[in-house]
């Protein structure tokens, strides 16, 4: 019984138990408005649902304890994320329990907002819209986030009733360029998905598919499926971009091109392929046209414009042409300017040239975000509104005022007096601030809905908890206000009906089953896919005019943030507290520049600079790092809110404020960068809230790497020395003791010796594990000031090191308590607060701890965290606290416990069935959520447990093992293609 199926039981068994597997009478079972029968105090119930933190739409299961959701995890049955979840998904809870969440609707009067009842708000909305509707066509407009099909239908229907045109779907990152490229080259007017897992060589022009691009969790596991070392095999990943973000940090080769020249390189490669007679299958005229269009992109020109060294470029060409199943991904999410457009088209063409079958392009499973409107349409809407063509504007969970560059007209339009703006947001963000009525709807974890991350599947949402506000489901709200009389009793029935109509389900039972497993989809692994059918006949007209790369100047780029996405995550303390994977800076939004640039401007990390463009300016601290092109100033999107809540407000700066709002006519989108900005020192400097010390590891044995070549040579000779370099692997088991080295006698454990294996070759540094740990273990949020003081509480941190030999190479190391067999922390405690458990855990007894902090001083890994104060969980955040884990008081030491509460739970299960705990039955939160399966947990004493077998991997080592601590966390070396 492997981990997945177990989770399935834990996750869904309880629901079926709740449903009693009977088709009738499950009516109220899934909502906890009344205390449900399936609620057993002290026992968790799991509800399958869908994550709506980004348009990807991963499947989740939500853990319900005593009527409140305390944790969300990926749904193992869901083909998209296969049980995994990213940092943002983990943090979904913090929207539900956010202290700044609105509990009642707010009506704007002369002197600010006043709270009103939901009925009144609903009534008000209803009257407003129907009045408007009577006044003529298009008097009511709706701007919504990307929503599921059911909700979309209701919206359309309602708007139709109000004789207005369909809603405008607003997404800050709407992939306009990519859609055009797909239309032109694949004949698919939408967003295809990619079978990364099938590729053996990957080339991206900025697509940050591990963070935010289309469907990050999906592409994370697919990426590792091709990129993790399988014996002597390992996929190859080239990135062409002026900067690295998390995705770039995982590239084997980063070709730092000058800002705005991705397209040049892409077209150059097209040219190269044509020159070596690729693409004979293309229609001759297309081929001719292509050759003509790519004429300007001969190698010299490309190298000159992009500034990429010849060697690297040649290497790329060679590897690309040699690859058996290469796949080329286009530009990043935000890149819908000329450059992005050309780059995307070119990359699609590259795919076409490299693989006429387009076998790795999946047109059958398309990403839902394709429904988003082009930026141009959004701006048009605001123009229209401004000119007073409508009376009511309904905003469903969108924040254009924050997400759109200045001069976007949104602010002006919303402020127009004659327009009645209703925001359905749960928070007073920059947009709702301008609304006349804020009518909060219930959040995804509290609501019925469906959503199709892939066009091919249906993924359901169900209320996983009791309501903590009276907010109505958006669906129900529209059923009320959108129709004279409710067409169906409630939105839930509506969804079921719709599914029945479309023939996806036949009866109530199937409906229940669907809800139980979280949707209708093929089991993971049996996803059917189809390559695009049509092939282009003529040259995409966008390529007709040659792409002009921008003038060389200091360029500015905004990268979607792995933590905040477009900024919607900025009010979730976990996401603020978990530092950026590259800069390790939390709560703040530094501008990243290359050390050379910094030097030339006499700047040092943490100096505050003013970045100014024609459209605006901002001030932010500098962070000098080698992962950006010297000609670029990089900044992450998402922070710099002026409203939205205590955690978001006044933290960092909003880089979007520097961008032009003009759209690229060819695709109707905009870019996320601009060529010429000025960067000047303000003379001030701040203390960066960073959690790291040195950026390099000074030749120490924390992160070890090996090369593919070495790996192919076969296992290295066994190490037998005493020094850092040649100390052998000493398992935390009796056989790990050697009388020549060990003063201490070996000690036995009873039945279990818990241990973890961390495959550094799989770890992409996304930080999902850290977030899961915050959620599972009630870690305190300390805030910016105290992180500056070095008091963060993360039990598990993703340590980032730069390669001393090549500073632009970044490596990640999940660092958590190593549960050593000879843990230096234990013996120094005067009161036995930390000690070695009979199952090998390094226990920390909070009640016993008196806070001498000697353990932390003596821990070579510095993974212990101290409660300097009593941390606060402002109401209702305390509802999220995991009842199985103590909340630590001030003055005690804490650290990773290997989720001992989960071990206990598993033991109870095992005891009840009186059997030993099975392999895979215990999965700590971090292991459970890791999108790339980099973490493996298990029992070392079980000879054929996964962890034990992985210990025999030639890559296995222990961090600083020569200190003879005998860590129970065994790392597997990261595999490099070459040094």
């Amino acid at each position, binding site marked *: 019984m492997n981990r997945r199926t177990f989770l399935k039981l834990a996750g869904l068994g309880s629901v079926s138990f709740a449903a009693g597997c009977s088709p009738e009478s499950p009516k109220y079972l899934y909502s906890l408005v009344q205390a449900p029968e399936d609620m057993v105090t002290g026992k968790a119930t799991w509800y399958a649902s869908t994550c709506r933190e980004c348009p990807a739409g991963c499947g989740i299961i939500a853990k319900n304890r005593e009527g409140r959701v305390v944790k969300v995890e990926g749904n193992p049955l869901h083909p998209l994320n296969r049980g995994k979840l990213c940092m943002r998904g983990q943090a979904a809870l913090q929207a539900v329990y956010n202290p700044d969440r609105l509990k009642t609707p707010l009506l704007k009067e002369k002197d600010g907002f006043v709270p009103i009842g939901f009925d009144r708000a609903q009534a008000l909305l209803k009257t407003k819209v129907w009045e408007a509707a009577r006044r003529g066509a298009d008097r009511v407009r709706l701007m919504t986030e990307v929503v599921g099909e059911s909700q979309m239908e209701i919206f359309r229907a309602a708007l139709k009733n109000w004789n207005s045109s369909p809603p405008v779907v607003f997404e800050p990152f709407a992939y306009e360029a990519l859609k055009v490229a797909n239309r032109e080259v694949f004949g698919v007017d939408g967003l295809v998905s990619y079978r990364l897992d099938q590729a053996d060589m990957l080339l991206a022009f900025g697509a940050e598919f591990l963070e935010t691009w289309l469907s990050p969790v999906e592409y994370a596991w697919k990426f590792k499926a091709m990129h993790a070392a399988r014996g002597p095999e390992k996929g190859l990943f080239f990135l062409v971009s002026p900067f690295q973000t998390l995705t770039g940090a995982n590239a084997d080769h980063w070709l730092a091109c000058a800002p705005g020249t991705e397209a040049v390189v892409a077209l150059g490669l097209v040219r190269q392929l044509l020159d070596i007679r690729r693409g004979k299958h293309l229609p001759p005229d297309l081929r001719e046209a292509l050759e003509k269009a790519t004429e300007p992109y001969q190698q010299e020109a490309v190298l000159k414009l992009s500034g990429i060294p010849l060697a690297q470029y040649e290497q790329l060409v060679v590897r690309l042409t040699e690859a058996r199943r290469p796949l080329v991904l286009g530009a990043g999410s935000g890149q819908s300017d000329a450059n992005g457009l050309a780059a995307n088209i070119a990359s699609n063409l590259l795919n076409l040239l490299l693989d006429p079958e387009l076998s790795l392009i999946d047109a059958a499973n398309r990403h839902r975000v394709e429904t988003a409107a082009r930026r141009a349409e959004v701006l048009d809407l605001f123009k229209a509104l401004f000119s007073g063509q409508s009376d009511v504007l309904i905003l469903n969970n969108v924040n254009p005022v924050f997400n759109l560059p200045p001069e976007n007209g949104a602010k002006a339009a919303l402020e127009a007096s004659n327009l009645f703006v209703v925001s359905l947001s749960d928070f007073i963000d920059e947009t709702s601030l301008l609304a006349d009525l804020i009518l909060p709807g219930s959040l995804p974890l509290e609501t019925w809905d469906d959503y199709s991350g892939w066009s091919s599947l249906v993924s359901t949402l169900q209320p996983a908890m009791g309501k903590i506000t009276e907010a109505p489901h958006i669906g129900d709200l529209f059923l009320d206000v959108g129709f004279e009389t409710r067409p169906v009793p409630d939105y839930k029935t509506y969804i079921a009906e719709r599914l029945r109509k479309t023939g996806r389900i036949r009866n109530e039972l199937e409906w229940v089953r669907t809800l139980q497993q979280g949707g209708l989809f093929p089991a993971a692994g049996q996803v059917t896919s189809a390559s695009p059918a049509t092939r282009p006949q003529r040259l995409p007209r966008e390529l007709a005019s040659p792409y002009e790369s921008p003038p060389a100047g200091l360029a500015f780029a905004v990268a979607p943030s792995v933590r905040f996405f477009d900024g919607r995550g900025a009010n979730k303390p976990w996401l603020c507290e978990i530092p950026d994977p590259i800069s390790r800076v939390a709560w703040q939004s530094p501008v990243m520049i290359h050390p050379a640039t910094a030097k030339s401007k006499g700047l040092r990390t943490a100096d505050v600079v003013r970045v100014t463009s024609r459209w605006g300016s901002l001030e932010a601290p500098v962070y000098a790092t080698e992962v950006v092109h010297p000609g670029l100033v990089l900044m992450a999107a998402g922070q710099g809110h002026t409203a939205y809540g205590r955690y978001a407000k006044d933290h960092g700066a909003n880089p979007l404020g520097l961008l032009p709002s003009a759209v690229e006519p060819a695709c109707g989108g905009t870019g996320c960068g601009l060529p010429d900005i000025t960067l000047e020192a303000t003379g001030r400097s701040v203390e960066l809230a960073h959690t790291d010390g040195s950026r390099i590891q000074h030749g120490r044995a924390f992160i070890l790497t090996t090369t593919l070549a070495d790996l192919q040579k076969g296992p290295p000779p066994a190490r037998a020395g005493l*020094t850092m370099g040649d100390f052998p692997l000493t398992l935390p088991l009796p056989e790990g003791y050697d009388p*020549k080295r*060990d*003063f201490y006698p070996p000690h036995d454990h009873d039945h279990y010796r818990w241990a973890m294996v961390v495959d550094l070759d799989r770890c992409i540094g996304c930080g999902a594990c850290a977030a899961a740990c915050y959620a599972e273990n009630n870690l305190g949020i300390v805030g910016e000031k105290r992180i500056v003081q070095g008091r963060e509480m993360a039990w598990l941190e993703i340590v980032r090191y730069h390669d001393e030999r090549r500073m632009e190479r970044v490596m990640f190391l999940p660092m958590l308590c190593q549960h050593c067999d*000879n843990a230096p922390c234990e013996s120094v405690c005067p009161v036995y607060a930390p000690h070695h458990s009979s199952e090998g855990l390094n226990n920390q007894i909070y009640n016993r701890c008196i806070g001498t902090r000697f353990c932390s001083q003596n821990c070579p890994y510095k993974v212990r965290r101290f409660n300097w104060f009593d941390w606060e969980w402002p109401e209702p955040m305390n509802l999220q606290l995991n009842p199985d884990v103590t909340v630590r008081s001030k003055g005690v030491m804490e650290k990773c416990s290997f989720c001992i509460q989960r071990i206990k739970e598993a033991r109870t299960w095992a005891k009840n069935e009186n059997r030993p705990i099975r392999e895979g039955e215990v999965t700590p939160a971090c292991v459970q959520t890791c999108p790339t399966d980099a973490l493996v947990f298990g029992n070392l004493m079980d000879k054929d447990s996964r962890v034990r077998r992985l210990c025999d991997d030639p890559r296995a080592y222990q961090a600083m093992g020569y200190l003879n601590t005998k860590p129970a966390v065994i790392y597997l070396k990261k595999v490099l293609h070459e040094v």
Partner: protein
Amino acid sequence: MNTTMPPVQPGRNAAPQRSLFTLGAVLAAAGLAAFLAGLLGPHPQRAWQAFLINFLLWSAMAQGAVLFSAVTHTVKARWTGPLSGLAGAFAGFFPVSLACFLILLIGKNHLFPWLHEDLHGKEIWLNIPFLFTRDGIGFLILYGTGWAYLSQDLKLKFGTSAAGGGLRRMLAGRIPQSDTDIQRVQRRKNLWGGLYCFAFALVLSLIGFDLVMSMDPHWVSTLFGAYHFVKAFYVGLGALIILAAIVHLRRGRSAGIAAAHFHDVGKLFFAFCLLWADFFYVQLTVIWYGNIPEETSYVILRTVTPPWDALAWVVFIVCFIIPFVVLINRRIKTMPGAMIALCSIVILGIWLEHLLLLGPALNHAAAELPLGVTDGLVFVGFLGLMVLALAYTLKTFPEFLPPGGEAPR
């Protein structure tokens, strides 16, 4: 104070008889024979090991004893009486020690295991030329200051009539006549005495690191140097007590070494017994507790791995337990006979302790203790050298001996 000590007329009876020389010569010859035999035998490195160990041990004795004189003088301790004089006599071994040091150079290939292994950059420090240069210079400085100090001391003791051989005269230089001279010599003596103490600490630490610790080039202990010179003083005191006791036994009360003297020096010996144990324990605890293989492996090999574990216990008992238990009793300290026995035991113990430290490094994977007749004989040989050195010094400079007559209370 030494200045107040009346100039003495060394009586013939005070100086050692010829028999003593013969004894010394015989012992030395035996040792030499054994050593050469060992060299020509199947295991020359064993002979060299024995040579090194004894060289360290006996030099330490001489250096330690002279330190007694210098240090008591520097702190103006009033209780030493004739002892500090006697202690000076051990300087006679300095030249021998220096010679032996140079002889080590011959056996370098047998003596320095690190010559044959990769030192990961430590070669900068661990290479024969540099090692012998710095240690040679160290010895020269140490012995130089020692002699300088003692010659001033002698000058003051010679008194008006410094009849005697050339060496006496050469060393003594011109004998101070006027009070001002005396004061000047006094000052020089203070200076050199202080310098000797300082040099002792520095040079013996260096020797400890270079000739003992570095034999296992991957192991370090910061205290090792201090441990080495405390040990030296420990054995030095032992040797001094033995000498004093012998003199006392031969000349009775006329030697002027009162019970109080034996008691005091005995207490000091006791104190250093404790200090030695302390330094031993301090290193053991820190390494045991730290549990870092780079450090522990060295100790493990020497304390819990056969055949060394037995030796370790013997050393501990002989160098600490026995003297500790015995010396708690104050009366025993005043019995010369008993003290001779005890000190000899301790010296033997330290001899074994050197074997414990060096043996494992010099004999890899030794099945049984590398300890045999040769080693014993070489020990005896060095004893002989020491006897000769002492006899010669005392003969040439009877001033080292206590003045005849009633002991000053």
